[in-house]
C-alpha cells in the first residue's frame, strides 16, 4: 500500500508544476499553489506580521470553552455529575454502533465525554452543549433526533400512516357492503328472471 501510494504520488508529482512556475495544476481554476508563498508564521512558530493589522485598542475577547459563549452559573458537583451523564447518554459515539459517549470506552467517546463533563462543570446548559456538538458533528451526533423540520415525520409518520390505513379499510368495507346490498336488491327487483329466482331461493335455503 505504501508502495502504491508512493507510486501514485510520483505519478502525481510528475504532473505537478515546479514550485514557482505559475502553472496551475489540473482542476485548479484559481491561483497557483504558492510554492514559496508569503508565510504569515515562520515554521518555528514565531509570529510574523499578520496581513491585516488589528487595532491595538480592540479589547481581547475572553476565551470561553465554547468560543464566544460565556457559561452560566456552575452547578453543584452532584448536579453536574447527573447532568453530564444525562447529556452524555444522548450523544452518539462517532466510532461505535449505536452507543452513547457515556457508554463507550472508545478514545473518541472518552474525549467527548470528558469535554461534556468539563462544559457542564463550567456552567454550560444542556442545550448549549448539545448545540456545540451538533455544530461540529451535525444532528447525527444526537441519539434522539430533535423534533423539528423533516424530523417530525419520525413522530407523525406512523400515526399518520395508521390513520390513513384505518380510513382506507373503513372505506373499503363500506363500499363492499353497499355493493352486496345493491346486488341483492337488483336480484329481488326482477324475481321473474329464472337465474335471479334460483339464486334467491338458494340464498333463502342457506
Amino acid at each position, binding site marked *: 500500500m505504501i508502495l502504491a*501510494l508512493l507510486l501514485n504520488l510520483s505519478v502525481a508529482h510528475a504532473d505537478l508544476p515546479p514550485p514557482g512556475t505559475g502553472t496551475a495544476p489540473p482542476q485548479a481554476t484559481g491561483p497557483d499553489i504558492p510554492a514559496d*508563498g*508569503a508565510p504569515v508564521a515562520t515554521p518555528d512558530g514565531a509570529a510574523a506580521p499578520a496581513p491585516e493589522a488589528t487595532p491595538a485598542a480592540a479589547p481581547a475577547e475572553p476565551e470561553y470553552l465554547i468560543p464566544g459563549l460565556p457559561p452560566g452559573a456552575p452547578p453543584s458537583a452532584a448536579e453536574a455529575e447527573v447532568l453530564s451523564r444525562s447529556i452524555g447518554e444522548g450523544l452518539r459515539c462517532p466510532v461505535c454502533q449505536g452507543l452513547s459517549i457515556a457508554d463507550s470506552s472508545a478514545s473518541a467517546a472518552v474525549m467527548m465525554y470528558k469535554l461534556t463533563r468539563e462544559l457542564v462543570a463550567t456552567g454550560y446548559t444542556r442545550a448549549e452543549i448539545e448545540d456545540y456538538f451538533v455544530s461540529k458533528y451535525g444532528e447525527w451526533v444526537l441519539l434522539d433526533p430533535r423534533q423539528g423540520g423533516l424530523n417530525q415525520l419520525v413522530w407523525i409518520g406512523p400515526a399518520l*400512516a395508521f390513520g390513513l390505513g384505518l380510513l382506507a379499510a373503513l372505506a373499503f368495507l363500506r363500499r363492499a357492503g353497499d355493493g352486496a346490498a345493491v346486488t341483492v336488491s337488483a336480484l329481488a327487483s326482477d324475481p321473474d328472471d329464472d337465474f335471479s329466482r334460483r339464486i334467491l331461493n338458494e340464498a333463502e335455503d342457506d
Partner: protein
Amino acid sequence: MSARKGVNVGVLVGGLAVILPLVWLLHSGFGNDPHEVPSVLEHTQAPLFKLVDLEGKPWDLSQLRGKPVVLNFWSTWCLPCKEEYPLMQQAASAYPGVQFLGVLYSDEPKKAVVYLRRMGNVFPQLVDPDGRTAIDYGVAGVPETYFINPSGVIVYKQVGPLSGQAMQSLLALASQDSP
C-alpha cells in the same frame, strides 16, 4: 362494471400515494452510510487553535491566515495513517508554500517522537491535549485531513488516507482564496 373500474383507480392512486414516498425514502436511504459522520464544517471558518508541537514550539492557526494549511489528524496506532505518512511528508516537501500541520490524535507524544525519528519528518506535529482541537474539528477517527484556504475556510475534509492524485487536486483547491 364502471363502478368497479372507479374503485380500482382509487385503490391504485391511494396505493401509489403510500408506496412512492416509501420507495423514495428507501432509495435515498440506501445511498447513505449510517455510520458516516457528516462534514458539517466544510465551507465554514476553520476553528482556531493554539497548540504546541512536539518540540515545544507554539502554533496559532490565526497567525497562518494568508496561506493554505493542511491539518492532518493522525496517530501512531493507526495503520492507514502510517500508510499515508510518506505521501504527507513528500507533499509537505514539494510545497513549502503550504503549511502542513500534523495533530496527534489520542496518542502519546513519546511514541510519536520515536516514530517520527525513525521515519523522518519535515513538518510540525502538534500535541492536542484531551483531543479538544480534534472535537472542535468534528474528528471521528484517524486519519482525517482538513484543507484550509488562505482565508481560513475549510474547503475539504478528507476521511481516510489520501491518494497522491487527490492530494494534488486538494492542494490546488486549498490554494484558491475565498471570493
